[in-house]
């Protein structure tokens, strides 16, 4: 579904991202982990054509994202609160996004029914603007809005951060349900190794802009990732173990 070739991004001579080749097949749940500054958000921003690549291309369903806008109808995302319109109520925001994705009000209302549990009664009918919601609730709105209109590719940056434990568990179930049918490609980044290993079938580790590990999730994955992030020396060992 998504193919990345020779993609790099430089800021003033410093390379923050450099990926030779990465292919994410349709229906995969893809996890991206890495420390601060590893290039996770940069990669996602490049996927959404929010920043200009220094070289290389991103193909989303064979469409070059920096050349055409045709990828927008089937791609949805939530990167940060700059994706929310602060002066709308959550309902209005959902309806607005719904309209952009050719869903009428009734469709959106039906769609939102499934999320009543996820919202925990704090989002809908509150007569509040989005800017007045808490950070966690804003995030819930952003994530759910990214699911409106059956997108084929969903990109979520740090979806677990700022959420309470109950919601984290609900969100994991949500993501697993999404990818069950193998129709929807979900890309997630996270600092939380446990969450990613639980929901993603494939995990890519970024470090200083480079792919340093590409793992198919298994029982051992969490241990492997933990030891990687615990220290550099152990990484060597892990990589040797792998090979």
């Amino acid at each position: 579904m998504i193919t990345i070739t020779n993609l790099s991004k430089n800021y003033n001579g410093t390379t923050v991202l450099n990926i030779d080749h990465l292919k994410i097949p349709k229906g995969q749940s893809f996890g991206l982990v890495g420390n601060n500054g590893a290039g996770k958000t940069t990669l996602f921003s490049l996927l959404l054509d929010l920043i200009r690549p220094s070289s290389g291309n991103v193909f989303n369903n064979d469409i070059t994202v920096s050349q055409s806008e045709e990828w927008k109808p089937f791609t949805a995302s939530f990167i940060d609160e700059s994706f929310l319109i602060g002066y709308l109520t959550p309902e209005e925001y959902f309806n607005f996004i719904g309209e952009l994705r050719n869903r009428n009000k009734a469709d959106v209302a039906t769609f939102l029914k499934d999320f009543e549990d996820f919202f925990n009664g704090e989002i809908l009918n509150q007569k509040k603007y989005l800017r007045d919601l808490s950070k966690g609730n804003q995030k819930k709105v952003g994530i759910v809005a990214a699911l409106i209109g059956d997108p084929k590719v969903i990109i979520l940056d740090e979806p677990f951060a700022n959420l309470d434990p109950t919601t984290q568990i609900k969100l994991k179930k949500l993501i697993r349900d999404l990818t069950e049918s193998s129709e929807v490609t979900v890309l997630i980044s996270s600092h939380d190794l446990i969450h990613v290993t639980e929901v993603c079938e494939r995990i890519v580790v970024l470090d200083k802009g480079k792919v340093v590990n590409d793992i198919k999730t298994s029982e051992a994955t969490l241990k492997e990732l933990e030891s990687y992030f615990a220290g550099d020396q152990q990484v060597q060992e892990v990589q040797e173990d792998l090979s």
Partner: protein
Amino acid sequence: MFKHFIYLQWKAFFRSSSLGKSIGLKILMGFLAIYFAVIFLLLGIGMYPLLTEFYPDQPPLHMANRFVLLWLVMELVFRFMLKTLPVMTVKPLLIAPIKKRKVVNYVLIKSLISFYNLLPLLLIIPFGIFLSFKTEIAPLSIIGWMVAVYTLILSVDYFNFLIKKKFTDNLKALLPLVLIAAVLAALEYFDVFRITLYFGNGMDYLVENPWLAIVPVLLFAALYKLNQHNLERRFYLDDSLGGPAKEVNTQEFNWVRRFGDIAPFLQLDLKLIWRNKRPKTTIFLSLIIMGYGLIFYPQDTYESMRTMYVFVGIFMTGIFMINFGQFIPAWDATYYSMMMSQNIPLKKYLASKVGLITFSIVVLTILTTPYVYFGTHILVMNIACAIYNIGVNVPILLYTGSFNRKRIELEKSPFMNYQGTGAAQWLVGIPLMLIPVAIFWPLTRWVSYEVGVAVLAGLGLLGIILRGPIMDFIERAYRKNKYAMIEGFKQTGE
């Protein structure tokens, strides 16, 4: 401590992504500043001779005093429209070990150190020097007079601070003030109660008793304290920086549905305008400017200078375009990355902006039709100007919008948030009005008024006919600058 604040502001200016635009404007404003400084200085030097010539049987100072109140009112009006209040990014300072009072004092003192406060000195000091050489008035009286007038002007500055905040908080609060001023002006005009005369007498009395200069000084100190108190009180997150959740306005603007596929964006823009204080003021401003024609149309002098009507026509029908349009797409800055990654073709987004502004021009033109009372040529002119605005000025504004890099904080309360509401805002409007004036003037001078009007309307129509290719061109500009815009709009702070 002030050193630190100045350092912060310096960095904020030079590290801002709209630096180029800011410097360009600063240079332009620098020239304007020099121009006004020279004018004021000449006026200051010429005031004494002029007053003796026009009113030979009255002492010049007595005459000057009669104009002081009028001057103060003018100062207030100009400051209100032009002066940008000092902005500081307050939130990070809240938890820093800095006394609130220090920050507040810095803001207030910085407001004093301003070009607008230098200008009156250029007037007062030469006049005072003339007085001391040409008249018998005691030096102490002259000094007292100068101190009094100057502190009155500075008081106007702080008064402006107070009402400017009131204005953005709550427009209705300003109404009684305007009403009182209107009543006083009417009473003055019909010789019922000449307040300028009484004020002038008061100033004369002050010249005789120079120690009374303490009164304006005390007024100034009181206004300073009032502002200080006001700002300190609002120095809390929940009070002015965050703002508690109020009962929300859920008006849907469903009537825009009929505009087809740009309807959702129009709806969004109307909500933007209606729910945020900053854009909301552009609406009220537009309605106030509707009265602008009354200044020009009744006067016969402008009948022989009909080029002015172009200016008035463009301004009145395009005031919303100028005030709102020049910040496109910065109004959407806080969620611009979403707009750029959502299922929104750029073209449709731009088309909706054109739709909104065109709609405003049509409405404003309809509102100006009563000016037909002053002659059909005015009605025709305003319609031609409206067409010119729609066809030519709207694309120009949209195109310049693609160079916009400056985020507008819609969600910040107006407290210390006056981005772009200073003189710079009006400067952008100048080319929009000067170009049609430059086109019209030679035509009406050497051909005829009718031809001039027809050419303006024709240019507008041409723009409307060529809308398709023009919009393609603008779209390319937006696409080219897309990344820089996203980057710039992410920058918070100044």
